[in-house]
């Protein structure tokens, strides 16, 4: 009951006096005064697209009723008891309704959807979160320093855990010239939290983002997310209209100059691999925002910021890889019972991270326009040789800017491919990933012909001599540096500075005691592989580069590892 209440009606603070934004405030400070207008704009556009003919309208209503009945019948909860009757009665009446009645019903359904999705922005909550978040996260990591911070008011530094990389000046330059769309890789539910923190510490603007409705069931998270501009996405709803409303909400917000964030991978990478097949829905909404503004002669550019979030330790690693390895896992889209929902795991995770340098690196890549072109400090789109061009040309057909959804869909597909390449180039290889890769490669090498699932059962059965491992780590590291020199990816400071011996120790310390099982442990002069699935998860980040990291003796095993990226 409470869960449903919180996810449908997150708490807001009462307003005594309305907040009047200052010109220097980020665009999102204007959101509350515009929210009704945004919702109305979304509703009008969705209704206009469906009302063009009766067959289409009837189809949309039938589709909505059919999918909602199916979902609610499966859910059998409070919401089902409330809403099932409405949909069942509606599906019986659709055929008998006249045009006016059908349009009225459509308008009601779409308005409810848009209102449910739309977020809120409260500057008071934002200011509080700005001050409190570093202290709270820091406090979780080091409780002793929390009291020090409260007494002397000194800000608690997250630098030891969270490192931000990229050309931040460039992004700060662009933030007042157009809409920035941050498109990060997605490994953990912590991503949106650490990313918000990274934006804040880098002097970048707050963003709106879609968060799964399941995350709103925690009262504290729900309060902060809702009041900091997050809009709610109910992934259980399969209705075509709902998806259209969601995309248009995102589009209208970007058109109006709100900076946005969404994860093009759609969901957390179950395998740990760098995402290469991206979901294009919300990406398309940002492309459409640019083209719509162009057609309306509104000069408000849209730029995408490919961002990678790189963890040495992933909060939910065990659940994610287990999910990937099971057939059921392929279809299990929303995990509600993973480590993210267990507060003890948060504590254990943060404690582990703060004890180790270089736990999380957020890298903001070079911004690009919707067509994959680099942009300069003024936001001009550039050719590969540095000539500036007008991105408005991309929406012209025979000299006129025109709306063309099919064309925009093709641009979006191409943008998805550009982002997938950029994710590889901007990935920062972490210590645990290098060690996991070399160990997993040894496992593959020592079990020729064995399939992936059989290997996952080899717990504690394969060991590598420590000296050999040090040598292999040293060789792998040299090859990683050579590849980094060619721009294939980046390596973390720790990987650069540590000796192979230190690298191994660091990874083993990261792994020990946090996950339920251990990826690898020391036993005298040997390193014993504990849970191969954890090794697989961490090494999967390096799958596209496996062959280039391997020397001749490991080439066969590396080729086999590289195939993981092709068939999955």
């Amino acid at each position, binding site marked *: 009951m409470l869960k449903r209440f919180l996810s449908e009606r997150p708490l807001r603070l009462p307003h005594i006096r309305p907040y009047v934004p200052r010109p220097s405030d980020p665009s999102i400070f204007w959101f509350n005064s515009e929210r009704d207008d945004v919702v109305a704009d979304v509703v009008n556009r969705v209704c206009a697209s469906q009302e063009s003919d009766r067959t289409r309208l009837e189809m949309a209503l039938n589709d909505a009723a059919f999918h909602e009945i199916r979902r609610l019948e499966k859910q059998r909860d409070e919401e089902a008891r409330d809403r099932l009757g409405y949909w069942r009665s509606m599906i019986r009446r659709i055929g008998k309704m006249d045009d006016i009645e059908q349009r009225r019903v459509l308008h009601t359904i779409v308005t409810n959807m848009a209102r449910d999705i739309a977020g809120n922005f409260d500057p008071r909550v934002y200011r509080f979160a700005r001050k409190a978040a570093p202290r709270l996260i820091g406090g979780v990591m080091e409780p002793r320093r929390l009291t020090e911070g409260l007494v002397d008011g000194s800000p608690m530094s997250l630098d030891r855990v969270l490192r931000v990389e990229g050309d931040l000046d460039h992004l700060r330059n662009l933030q007042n010239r157009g809409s920035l769309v941050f498109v990060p890789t997605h490994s953990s539910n912590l991503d949106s939290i650490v990313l918000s923190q990274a934006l804040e510490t880098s002097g970048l603007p707050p963003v709106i983002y879609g968060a799964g409705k399941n995350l709103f069931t925690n009262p504290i998270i729900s309060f902060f997310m809702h009041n900091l501009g997050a809009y709610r996405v109910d992934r259980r709803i399969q209705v075509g209209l709902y998806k259209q409303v969601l995309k248009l909400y995102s589009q209208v917000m970007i058109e109006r100059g709100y900076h946005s964030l969404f994860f093009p991978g759609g969901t957390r990478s179950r395998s740990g691999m760098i995402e290469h097949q991206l979901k294009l829905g919300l990406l398309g909404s940002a492309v459409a925002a640019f083209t719509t503004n162009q057609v309306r002669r509104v000069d408000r550019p849209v730029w995408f910021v490919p961002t990678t979030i790189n963890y040495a330790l992933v909060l939910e690693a065990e659940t994610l890889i287990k999910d990937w390895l099971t057939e059921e896992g392929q279809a299990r889209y929303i995990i509600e019972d993973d480590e993210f929902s267990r507060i003890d795991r948060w504590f254990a995770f943060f404690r582990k991270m703060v004890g180790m340098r270089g736990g999380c690196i957020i890298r903001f890549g070079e911004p690009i326009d919707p067509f994959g072109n680099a942009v300069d400090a003024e936001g001009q789109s550039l050719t590969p040789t540095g000539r500036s061009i007008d991105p408005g040309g991309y929406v012209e057909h025979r000299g006129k800017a025109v709306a063309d959804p099919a064309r925009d869909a093709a641009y979006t597909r191409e943008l998805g491919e550009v982002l997938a390449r950029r994710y590889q180039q901007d990935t920062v290889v972490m210590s645990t990933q290098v060690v996991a890769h070399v160990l997993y490669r040894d496992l593959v090498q020592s079990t020729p012909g064995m399939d992936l699932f059989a290997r996952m059962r080899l717990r504690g059965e394969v060991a590598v001599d420590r000296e050999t491992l040090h040598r292999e780590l040293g060789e792998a590291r040299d090859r990683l540096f050579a590849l980094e020199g060619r721009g294939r990816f980046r390596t973390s400071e720790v990987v650069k500075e540590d000796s192979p011996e230190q690298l191994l120790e660091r990874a083993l310390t990261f792994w020990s005691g946090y996950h339920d099982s251990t990826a690898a442990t020391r036993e005298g002069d040997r390193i014993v592989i504990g849970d191969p699935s954890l090794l697989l998860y961490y090494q999967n980040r390096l799958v596209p580069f496996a062959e280039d990291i391997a020397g001749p003796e490991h080439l066969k095993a590396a080729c*086999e590892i*590289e195939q993981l990226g092709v068939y999955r």
Partner: protein
Amino acid sequence: MSLRIAVVGAGGFGRAIAQASARHGHEVVLWSRRDRELPAPVRTSTDIHSIKDCELIFMAVPARHAIETSEQLGEVVDGRHLMVHISRGLIGPELETITQVIARKTVCRRLGALAGPLVADALAEGRPSGAILGTGFPELTEMVREALGGSELRVYDTPDVIGVELASATVGFLTVVLAYAQEVGVGPSTLAVLATRGMVEVSRIGQTLGAEESTFTGLAGLGDLIAAVAGDERPEIRLGRALARGATLSSAVGEAGAYIEGIEVAAQMMEHARRLGLETPISSTFVALSEGRMSSDDAIQALMERRVGRE
């Protein structure tokens, strides 16, 4: 409404496209590195800036010149241009396609690949013919049909751009294989098996790069291969025959009288397949043959002795 069309490259195909477009009443400029004469109303130029105001660009250069030509085009094109290429090759061990090269070297994004059983002479003379255009942009399909289509050329389209490019590149190699086989006297049944299984082999590799299987069995793949074997006098046929008569690869290429990308494509695809652990019996056997590492009898025996399974 007349289109402003640029044709880049003055080889057989470039000239044929320029003539066909002009015949349909469009304004055409043909760019090439050297001075060329073409019957009016086609305008010729050696200045790459002369194509700047065109809406539609056809790039008709051999794949080995694709990078250099794209770099030149990169100096003049922008987001307004729509571009189609007619090259049959792939670039480098990563099997980069020509549209990928163009996208990397220029800011042109509305791209397509024109392929299939399209023959330069038929196009120039307006004889009935057909082609396939791989593009994600319906407006580009419309424009190409307007430029070349009508009652003379049926231009089908597919969004599987990479499939069209891979199929088109590998047809060249399969054509050499079939010509070789014909010359050494294998029968129609063996030819059919070679053609069909060869296409399956390249299609399997293509799918790992994102291509669709059906594209290989359509106009870009089998359609084009049928035209080649039916005798549209491609240089690949001459190359295959010369190799079968015992010529070395370099002298066979000389005899064919044209640069042929098929052998390179086969070697590149084999390397890619090796990395993925895929079997490529026909490509591997043919590369061994062309390099003189195997006789034709041994090649047929090696292929026939392979384990046979479900299609």
